[in-house]
């Protein structure tokens, strides 16, 4: 019965995201711009012989996956911040459903819708760009083949959900600091840098790779991207296990943070 409530919330959020066409078109345009731009950059770099370890097509597919995740996660932290700052949270709390998980499921609904539309568009565009980058007889698939891409895509969906959990956590900070933008700013920069948004972490210096490995960021972007372009099965299993561990830990953190947030409301009066 409870699950139906959350499914209904996810479904209405997906419908709302679908209705906000201007935002969707903006995201599609940005996604296309990034892919086209980087396809050109990889081409120029490859012409100078600087790309060896990973092929241009794979780099493009890697970027398509990481950007897909980054663009699909809705700004749930801003929604929660708005609720707290406007007092809308007073509307949402006295309901027979958890405010926290209702908001999260709404985020999931919007995320799935974005993933579907951005994925269809971006993967199609990436296939065209990858083929043109590697020559007319080359494959449009990443070097791991369609199965690796499928595995990477599925991992990316879980990674995006984990991203959403972290955004929920950032949103909950609004109960204590009101303005979540500084927290999000730091999070986003670290996520892009240590998550390997633009290049796989394999291209980073060893020292940076080991720092990144101690953080959740590689699970959020790098792991699904790397699996999608083809990785050793051992790497894939390890990445999936790490993703699961970070998911459990982050959900626990969100749960605890919400309890503290409610207590903060009690102390400060909201």
């Amino acid at each position, binding site marked *: 019965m409870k699950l139906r409530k959350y499914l209904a919330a996810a479904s209405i959020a997906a419908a709302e995201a679908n209705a906000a066409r201007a935002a969707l078109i903006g995201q599609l345009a940005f996604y296309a711009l990034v892919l086209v731009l980087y396809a050109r950059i990889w081409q120029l770099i490859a012409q100078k012989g600087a790309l060896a370890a990973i092929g241009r097509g794979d780099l493009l597919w890697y970027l398509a996956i990481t950007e897909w995740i980054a663009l699909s996660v809705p700004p749930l932290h801003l929604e929660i911040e708005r609720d707290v700052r406007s007092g809308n949270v007073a*509307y949402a709390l006295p309901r027979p459903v958890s405010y926290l998980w209702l908001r999260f499921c709404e985020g999931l609904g919007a995320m799935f819708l974005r993933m579907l539309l951005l994925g269809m568009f971006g993967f199609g565009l990436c296939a065209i760009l990858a083929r043109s980058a590697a020559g007319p007889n080359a494959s449009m698939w990443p070097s791991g083949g369609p199965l690796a891409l499928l595995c990477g895509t599925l991992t990316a969906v879980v990674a995006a959900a984990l991203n959403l959990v972290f955004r929920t956590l950032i949103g909950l900070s609004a109960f204590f600091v009101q303005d979540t933008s500084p927290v999000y700013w730091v999070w986003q920069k670290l996520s892009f840098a240590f998550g390997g948004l633009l290049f796989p972490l394999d291209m980073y210096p060893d020292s940076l790779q080991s720092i990144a490995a101690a953080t959740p960021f590689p699970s959020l972007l790098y792991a699904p991207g790397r699996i999608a372009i083809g990785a050793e099965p051992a790497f894939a299993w390890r990445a999936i296990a790490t993703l699961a561990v970070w998911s459990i830990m982050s959900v626990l953190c969100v749960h605890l943070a919400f309890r503290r947030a409610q207590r903060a409301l009690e102390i400060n009066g909201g």
Partner: protein
Amino acid sequence: MNHAIELRDLKKSFRTRKASAPSFLGAVRGLVSPQTKLFCAVDGISFSIAEGERVAFIGPNGAGKSTTLKILSGILHPDEGYVRVLGLTPADDRTKLAYRIGTVFGQKSQLWQELPASDTFRLLARIYDLPEARFRSRLSALIELFELEPFLAQPVRKLSLGQRMRCELACSLLHAPKLLFLDEPTIGLDVTAKARVRELVREQSEREGTSVLLTSHDTGDTEQVCERVIVINHGKLLFDQSLASLRARFITHKRVTLVSDTASLGLILPGVRVIAREPYKTKLEVDIRVSPIAKVVESALALANLQDLTIEDPPLEQIVQAIYAGTSLRPEPEREAS
């Protein structure tokens, strides 16, 4: 009598941070060891509301209204005191209570802006576990009562504020709550829309016996929706009586406008002063404790033939301000006759 709300000696305090000294050192000290002080938001409030009763809960900003509402809806725990809402303890039985209360906050929205209001209704039906048949019958009744049909399929962002507020009300009533909390339900609406919303709330309460606790700075809401007024300030209860008692107790002066066949009416009575004079029209402020209205009319009739007579109470707003200030109502300053 069954009570929708019972409050006894309710107290709630919050710890707030003291402002640090306006210097760099003060800012650092404030960051390292912030100084706090206890702020008493609700200070021993007691009242009860019967089932089906419509009560205005008013007070200036910071009086403790929102805190009380949050305690009543189970968002906050009281520090002290007895609270029962529809037979439940709100903070302990928040989920159970949620099925039986509805809330409308005039400045906030529970509607999904890009979608038609009907989508939000469907979501709320799920959240409140309404069976499909019950949802349909309830929704069609609300659509008819609130006249939502013409704009039910339009995205909420395209609705006027009045239409949106009618949808908000319908959202809050979908699960047939026994108690409705209304917080500034007519804020920002035009005169017609305000009147319609007030009428709808009253009708709905009378039809289903829904208790209403309304907070509003618009005294029109109080006058046209409620039958009883509770006034609080600084967390303390100042007044809790019927609207009629409020007027009787605080109205010491009335305004009388006389239109006569005499160009200038020279009425001299104790407690009566002329506040405006035009040819054939005289406006008086009458202290009814000194000179009853009947005596004033009688004296005016002795002087001239009256063609029209209007007796007005001062606006409720003035009465409420007088209660906040802890004074009896004073007449407005005298205005020169034009």
